[in-house]
C-alpha cells in the first residue's frame, strides 16, 4: 500500500497539499508585504507619544483597527487587540463574569465550544459560578428553546460560537442574540472560524462581544481581537492583564504592531474577497464531497450541510480508523477526530456531542479547504482518500464482518483494559 501518490507533479500540484485551514492558514503574501516595513524601519512602540516612530506605529494600528471593525460592522473604538482568540475568549468571559458578579453568577455555553471557552468556563465554576452547557442536536445546532429555558434571573452571559472549528456548523447567532437582548443578557460569540468567511454584522446579529483570530484568516499567528460593544448596551469588562492600561484599559501591554497590521490587512482582504471566495470554496468542497460519495459506501457527513462554512467538510469513513487513513495520505494535511490523533487519546468531544458514536468519531476526517487550494488539489485529494479507504477496508475486520451481515452493535467485544 503506497503512502505517496503518483505524479502529483504531473497534475501540476505541489506536494504536500495543505487542506487543514481550520487549524491554521498560511499568511496571504499581501499581508506579509504590509507588515514588513514595521519590523526594521517603522518599528516604533505605538504608545510612544512623543516622536515620529511612535506616531507612525500608532497610525498604522489605528488603520488596522478600522479594517477589523469594518469587517464585522463595528466602530474602531470597539476593537481591542489581543494575542489571539484564546485570550479574547478569556477576556470576554472572565471580564464579564467579574464585572457583573453583583448582577448574577450564571453563564450559558454549549458542549461543542472550543476549549478556550470550555476551559475558561470550568475555571469560573471553580470560582463559584454556575455554568450551563447546552447540548446540540444531531446536526450540530443548539435548540433555541433549550437556550430560552436555561436563561434565568442570575444569567449574565451567553457564549456560543458562530462557526464550529471541527464540523464547520453555523449556529443561529442572530436568533440567539435576539433572545439575549430580550432577556437582558450579554451575548459573546467566538467568531474565529466565521469572520471573513460568512457575513458577520454585530448590529444585525445582536452580538455584544466577538473573538477574532489572525491566523485563521490568512494573517499571522499571535494576534487577535475582541469586539466589545459600546452602545445599546455598553459592555464593560474587568481586564485580565494589568499594566499600563492600553486598549482603553481593557488590555495592557505593548501592542504587537506588526501582528496587528497583519490582522487588519487580512480583514480587509477578506472583506474584498468574501463573496467570490464563498462561491469558489463551496464549489470545491462540494466537488470533493461528491467525488468521495460517488466512489465509497458507508460514508457519513458529520453536522448540518445546510448551515455550514463554505470550505469545511467532516466525513466519517466507517470501518476505517482515522489515523491510519491520515498515514495513507501523508502527502495531504488534514485532521481527524480519532482518539489516536489527539494528545489525550480521547476521541473528538464535538463528534461525540452529535451522538455519532465513538467508532464513527475514530473514523472521521476534517477537510478545510482555503483560499490557496485548487481544483486540481481537490481532485488529487479525492482520489487518494478513496484509494486509501478502499485498501484499509481490505485490512479491516469490521468491514469484513459488516459485509457478512453481522450487526456490529450487537457484538460482544473483548476489549482489554488499557
Amino acid at each position, binding site marked *: *500500500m503506497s*503512502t505517496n501518490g503518483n505524479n502529483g507533479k504531473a497534475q501540476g500540484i505541489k506536494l504536500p497539499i495543505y487542506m487543514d485551514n481550520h487549524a491554521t492558514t498560511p499568511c496571504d503574501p499581501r499581508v506579509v508585504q504590509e507588515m514588513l516595513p514595521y519590523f526594521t524601519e517603522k518599528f516604533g512602540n505605538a504608545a510612544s507619544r512623543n516622536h515620529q516612530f511612535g506616531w507612525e506605529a500608532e497610525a498604522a494600528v489605528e488603520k488596522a483597527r478600522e479594517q477589523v471593525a469594518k469587517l464585522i460592522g463595528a466602530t474602531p473604538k470597539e476593537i481591542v487587540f489581543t494575542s489571539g482568540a484564546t485570550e479574547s475568549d478569556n477576556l470576554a468571559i472572565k471580564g464579564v463574569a467579574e464585572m457583573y458578579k453583583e448582577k448574577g453568577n450564571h453563564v450559558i455555553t454549549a458542549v461543542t465550544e472550543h476549549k478556550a471557552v470550555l476551559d475558561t468556563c470550568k475555571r469560573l465554576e471553580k470560582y463559584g459560578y454556575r455554568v450551563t452547557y447546552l447540548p446540540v442536536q444531531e446536526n450540530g445546532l443548539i435548540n433555541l428553546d433549550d437556550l430560552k429555558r436555561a436563561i434565568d434571573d442570575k444569567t449574565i452571559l451567553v457564549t456560543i460560537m458562530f462557526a464550529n472549528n471541527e464540523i464547520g456548523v453555523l449556529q443561529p447567532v442572530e436568533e440567539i442574540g435576539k433572545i439575549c437582548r430580550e432577556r437582558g443578557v450579554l451575548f459573546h460569540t467566538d467568531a474565529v472560524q466565521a469572520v471573513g468567511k460568512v457575513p458577520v454584522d454585530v448590529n444585525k446579529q445582536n452580538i455584544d462581544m466577538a473573538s477574532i483570530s489572525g491566523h485563521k484568516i490568512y494573517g499571522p499567528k499571535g494576534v487577535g481581537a475582541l469586539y466589545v460593544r459600546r452602545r445599546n448596551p455598553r459592555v464593560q469588562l474587568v481586564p485580565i492583564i494589568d499594566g499600563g492600561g492600553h486598549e482603553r484599559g481593557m488590555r495592557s501591554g505593548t501592542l504587537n504592531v506588526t501582528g496587528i497590521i497583519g490582522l487588519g490587512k487580512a480583514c480587509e482582504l477578506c472583506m474584498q474577497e468574501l463573496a467570490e471566495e464563498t462561491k469558489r470554496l463551496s464549489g470545491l468542497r462540494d466537488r470533493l464531497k461528491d467525488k468521495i460519495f460517488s466512489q465509497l459506501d458507508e460514508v457519513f457527513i458529520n453536522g448540518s450541510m445546510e448551515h455550514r462554512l463554505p470550505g469545511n467538510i467532516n466525513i466519517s469513513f466507517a470501518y476505517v480508523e482515522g489515523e*491510519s487513513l491520515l498515514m495513507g495520505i501523508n502527502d495531504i494535511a488534514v485532521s481527524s477526530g480519532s482518539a489516536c490523533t489527539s494528545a489525550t487519546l480521547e476521541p473528538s468531544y464535538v463528534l461525540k456531542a452529535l451522538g455519532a458514536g465513538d*467508532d464513527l468519531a*475514530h473514523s472521521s476526517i476534517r477537510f478545510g479547504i482555503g483560499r490557496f487550494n485548487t481544483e486540481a488539489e481537490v481532485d488529487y485529494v479525492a482520489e487518494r482518500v478513496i484509494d486509501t479507504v478502499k485498501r484499509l477496508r481490505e485490512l*479491516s*475486520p469490521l468491514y*469484513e464482518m459488516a459485509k457478512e451481515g453481522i450487526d456490529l452493535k450487537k457484538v460482544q*467485544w473483548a*476489549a482489554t483494559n488499557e
Partner: protein
Amino acid sequence: MAYSDKVLDHYTNPRNVGSMDKSSPQVGTGLVGAPECGDVMKLQIKVNPETQVIEDAKFKTFGCGSAIASSSLATEWVKGKTVDEALSIKNTDIVRELALPPVKIHCSVLAEDAIRAAIGDWKKKNANVPEQTAAD
C-alpha cells in the same frame, strides 16, 4: 508524530493480510479490542495438529498505523513457532522491534492479546490433542 521506519514498512507492506476458515478445527481465531476504543484486531493461526506448529497466520486490523504494524509483526513472529512458544511473545518485544512511543504501547498489548486469544481458541477446539512432548 514521527513513525519508525519499521512501522511505516508494515503499514505500507503489511504481511499476511486476510482471513482463514473460522470453522476449521486447525484454525484458531482471536478477536480483540472494540470499535469504540478505535482498535480491533483479528488474528488467525493455522496449526499443524501433530507438531502443534503454527504453519500460517493471517490478520485484519481496524486501528492506527502502530496497531496495524503490531498485528502484522505478530503474524510474522508466530509463524513457525509452536503454540506454546508463541505464548512467550511479549508486547515489550513488539515495542522494541517497532520502536513504539509510550502513547502507542497499548497497540502492542492488544497484539499480544490477539495472539493469546487465537491460541486459546485453537486449544479450546482441540482440547483432546495431547500436549507436545519434550522431543518436539
